[in-house]
C-alpha cells in the first residue's frame, strides 16, 4: 500500500518534489508524473506502430503478385503474427492508455493518477515485452507463426519463439491490469468536487468501462497462454485430445478474452470522438445519458458473444443460433452511438479542422466496419466468409479506421494543450486525406477478395485474386508512407508554431481547457471548482 500513500501525498500536497525532479534520461525512468508517463506511452505506441506497420508492408509486399517473391511462407506467418500482436498490444492499447494518462486527471481536475509509482511501473513493463516479441524473430525457429490467436496444436509445434511470445503476453497483461487499476481508481476517487459520475467527460466513462473489461479479461488471456505453456513443456494436455483435452477449448478461452479486447480498443476511441465532434460542432453532445448506457451495454454484451469467432469449429446449432442473436444485439447500442454523434452535428456550427476530419473519417469507416460486422454475425453467411479476406477487411475497418483514426483525432485535438503550439493545419489535412484515401484503396478491395473466396493468412494466392491484391498493396504502401507525416507534424508542433491559447478550440468544454497551454507540469494541485457549464452533457 506504499503506492497508495505516496499517491495520497502527490494527490494533495507533495511539496518537496516540486521543481527538483531528475533531469535527462533519469527523469523519464523515474518519473511518476502522469503527463510524462502519458507522453512515454504515446511515443512507445508510435514506435511500435511503425514496427508493426513495417511488418504489414512486408506482408502486403509479398502479396503484390501471385508467386513467392520476397519471403518464405514461414517468415510470412511470423510477420502476420507479430504484426497483429504488436499492433494490438504494442500500438493501439498503449496509445489509448497514453491519452488516459495525459487527459483523465486533467479532465476530472485531479493532480495526478491515483497510484503514481505503479503508473511508472506499468509503463516500463512495456519495453521489455516489446523486446521479447521482436527478439523472438531471432531465436532458432523464429517467432510464433500461428497468427495472434495462437491456436493449438499449431502453437504446440512452434519453437522457442512461442515461449517468448507467451512471456511477452504475460508482461503486457500485467501492465494493462496495473494501468486499469490506476485509471479506474483515479476516475472513481479523484474527481473534482461536484463532478458526479453522470457529469463526467465521456472519455472517462469509456475508460472506466474499458478498465473493467481489461481487468476481467486479461487474466483470462494470461490463463490461456499459461495452459499453452504447460502443454508445451510440462506434459499437461489441456488442449490435446490425446490426454483428454480439446484444442477447441483454447479457442473458447481465447475469444472469451478476445472479444472484450475488441471493445477495449474501440471504447476509448468512442470516447475521443465524443469529445471531438461536439467541440467542432459547437454544440453539446447529443444524448449523453444514452451514450453512457450504450457504452456499458457494449461492455457487458462483449462477454457473451465470443463464439461468433468460432462458427466453423463445430459448435452445435443451438450455440450458433444463440451467438448469432447475441452478436446482433451489439448492433443496437453501437447504432445508438453513431446516431448520437450524427445528431450532435445536426444544426451545429461545423468547422473542419484536422481533429474533426479524423473524427468524421472514423465515423464513416467505423460504420462500414460495423455494418460488415453485422453481415458476419449471420452464421450462415459467416461460414462462407470465415477466415477469408472479408474478415481481414472488416476488422481493419474497425481497428485501423476505428481506433487509429480516433487516436489521430485525439492527437490533433490535444496536441496544442500538450505542446503549447498549434500544429500545422495544412500538413494535418494532408495527413488526413492521404490516410483516408489510401486506407480505402488498401482495404476496400479486400471485401471482394474475401467474397470471391481468398483465405486469409496465405503467402501466395490463385491468379483470379491478383488484381485486387495489387490495388490493396499499392494502397497499403501509400497508407504506410502517409503515417510518417505525423512525425513531421508532431516535431514541428513541439519545436514551435503559433502559440496555443488555453482553449484553442472555441467549442471545446471541460476542465482540461481551463489550464494554460502547454499544460504546466503540475495541474490541479487543489481540486478546482467544477462549473456545470463545462460539463460534457
Amino acid at each position, binding site marked *: *500500500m506504499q503506492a*497508495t*500513500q505516496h*499517491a*495520497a*501525498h502527490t*494527490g*494533495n500536497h507533495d511539496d518537496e518534489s516540486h521543481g527538483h525532479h531528475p533531469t535527462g534520461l533519469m527523469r523519464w525512468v523515474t518519473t511518476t508524473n502522469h503527463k510524462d508517463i502519458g507522453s512515454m506511452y504515446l511515443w512507445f505506441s508510435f514506435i511500435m506502430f511503425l514496427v508493426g506497420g513495417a511488418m504489414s508492408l512486408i506482408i502486403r509486399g509479398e502479396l503484390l503478385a501471385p508467386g513467392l517473391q520476397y519471403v518464405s511462407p514461414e517468415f510470412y506467418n511470423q510477420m502476420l503474427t507479430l504484426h497483429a500482436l504488436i499492433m494490438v498490444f504494442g500500438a493501439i492499447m498503449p496509445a489509448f492508455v497514453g491519452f488516459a494518462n495525459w487527459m483523465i486527471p486533467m479532465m*476530472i*481536475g*485531479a493532480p495526478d493518477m*491515483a*497510484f503514481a509509482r505503479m503508473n511508472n511501473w506499468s509503463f516500463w513493463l512495456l519495453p521489455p515485452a516489446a523486446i521479447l516479441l521482436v527478439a523472438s524473430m531471432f531465436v532458432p525457429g523464429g517467432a510464433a507463426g500461428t497468427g495472434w490467436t495462437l491456436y493449438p496444436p499449431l502453437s504446440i509445434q512452434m519453437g522457442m519463439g512461442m515461449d517468448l511470445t507467451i512471456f511477452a503476453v504475460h508482461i503486457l497483461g500485467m501492465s494493462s*491490469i496495473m494501468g*486499469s*487499476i490506476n485509471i*479506474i*481508481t483515479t476516475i*472513481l*476517487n*479523484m*474527481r*473534482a*468536487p*461536484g*463532478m*458526479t*459520475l453522470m457529469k463526467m467527460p465521456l472519455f472517462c466513462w469509456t475508460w472506466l468501462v474499458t478498465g*473493467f473489461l481489461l*481487468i*476481467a*479479461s*486479461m*487474466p*483470462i488471456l*494470461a*490463463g*490461456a497462454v499459461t*495452459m499453452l505453456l504447460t502443454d508445451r513443456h510440462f*506434459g*499437461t*494436455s*489441456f488442449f*490435446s*485430445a*490425446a*490426454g*483428454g*483435452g*480439446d484444442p477447441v*477449448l483454447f479457442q*473458447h*478461452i481465447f475469444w472469451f478474452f478476445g472479444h472484450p479486447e475488441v471493445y477495449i480498443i474501440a471504447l476509448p476511441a468512442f470516447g475521443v470522438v465524443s469529445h471531438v465532434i461536439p467541440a467542432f460542432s459547437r454544440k453539446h453532445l447529443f444524448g449523453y445519458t444514452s451514450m453512457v448506457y450504450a457504452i456499458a451495454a457494449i461492455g457487458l454484451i462483449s462477454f457473451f458473444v465470443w463464439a461468433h469467432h468460432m462458427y466453423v469449429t*463445430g459448435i*452445435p*446449432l443451438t450455440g450458433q443460433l444463440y451467438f448469432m442473436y447475441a452478436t446482433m444485439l451489439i448492433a443496437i447500442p453501437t447504432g445508438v452511438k453513431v446516431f448520437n454523434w450524427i445528431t450532435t452535428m445536426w444544426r451545429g456550427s461545423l468547422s473542419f479542422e484536422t481533429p474533426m476530419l479524423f473524427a468524421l473519417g472514423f465515423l464513416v469507416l467505423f460504420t462500414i466496419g460495423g455494418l460488415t460486422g453485422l453481415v458476419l454475425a449471420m452464421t450462415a453467411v459467416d461460414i462462407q466468409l470465415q477466415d477469408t479476406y472479408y474478415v481481414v477487411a472488416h476488422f481493419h475497418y474497425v481497428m485501423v479506421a476505428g481506433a487509429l483514426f480516433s487516436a489521430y483525432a485525439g492527437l490533433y485535438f490535444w496536441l496544442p494543450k500538450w505542446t503549447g503550439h498549434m500544429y500545422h493545419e495544412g500538413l494535418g489535412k494532408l495527413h488526413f486525406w492521404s490516410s483516408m484515401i489510401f486506407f480505402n484503396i488498401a482495404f476496400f478491395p479486400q471485401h471482394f477478395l474475401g467474397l470471391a473466396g481468398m483465405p486469409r493468412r496465405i503467402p501466395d494466392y490463385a491468379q483470379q485474386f491478383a488484381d485486387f491484391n495489387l490495388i490493396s498493396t499499392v494502397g497499403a504502401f501509400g497508407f504506410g508512407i502517409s503515417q510518417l507525416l505525423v512525425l513531421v507534424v508532431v516535431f514541428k508542433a513541439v519545436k514551435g508554431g503559433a502559440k496555443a491559447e488555453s482553449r484553442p478550440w472555441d467549442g471545446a468544454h471541460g476542465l482540461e481547457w481551463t489550464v494554460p497551454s502547454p499544460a504546466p507540469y503540475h495541474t490541479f494541485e487543489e*481540486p478546482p471548482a*467544477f462549473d456545470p457549464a463545462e460539463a460534457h452533457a
Partner: protein
Amino acid sequence: MVSQQLNFSTGLAGKENGRSTVASNRRVVGLLLTVIVGSLLFVSAQPRLYKAFCDWVGLYDIDRAERVAASAIPARPVVLEFDANSHEGGLLFRPEIKTLQASTGDIINVTYRVENTRNTTVIGQAVPSYGPQHAGEYVRKLDCFCFKQQTFAPYEVREMPVVFVLNRDLPSDVNTVTLSYTFFEIPAGSVDKPAVSMEGRT
C-alpha cells in the same frame, strides 16, 4: 449500495483530507483485485467447466458405462457408421465393419481391430467423437475399449469391443450416426499420471 460506500458519486467533495482518499483507494483496489482473482479462478476452472458443459450437452462421449432406461418411444431404423483414426504411426486401427443398419434401442456390439506394428509395448488411449456431434448425447456405452488406456504387446493384434445402445429419443432428424475413435499413443513418461481431465474416463 457500493457506490455510496465508496463515495463514487460525489468525487472529491467532502474528503479534503488525504486519509479518506487513501481508504477509498484501498477499497477500490480491493474490489478490482477481487475481479482479477475471480477472473483467474474462472480461467483456471475452464478445463473442468468445459468438460462438464460438454458432458451436459452431450458433445463428448460420457465415457462411463451407463444404464439404459426403458423407453416408451418406439424404435426406428438408423444407419451406423464406424470410423477409426490413428494419430501416430505405430498402431494400425480399423473397425471390423464400416456400416450397420440398426434400430434405436438395440444393443449394438461392434469390434475394432488394433495391430501394434512396433516391436515395443505401446500404450494407447482412444478418444471418441461423433458425427453429428450432438448424437453423442444419445449413445449409451455399456462397454468400450476407450474407457481406459490400452497396453499392446509388441506386434500384438487385438480385437476390441464397443457395446452401446442408441437411445430411442434420438432426434428425428438424425438418421445416420458416426462413431469415430482416434488412437493416441501415450508417451511412456506420462502413463502413470493421466492429464487433469482424464479422471472421469478411467
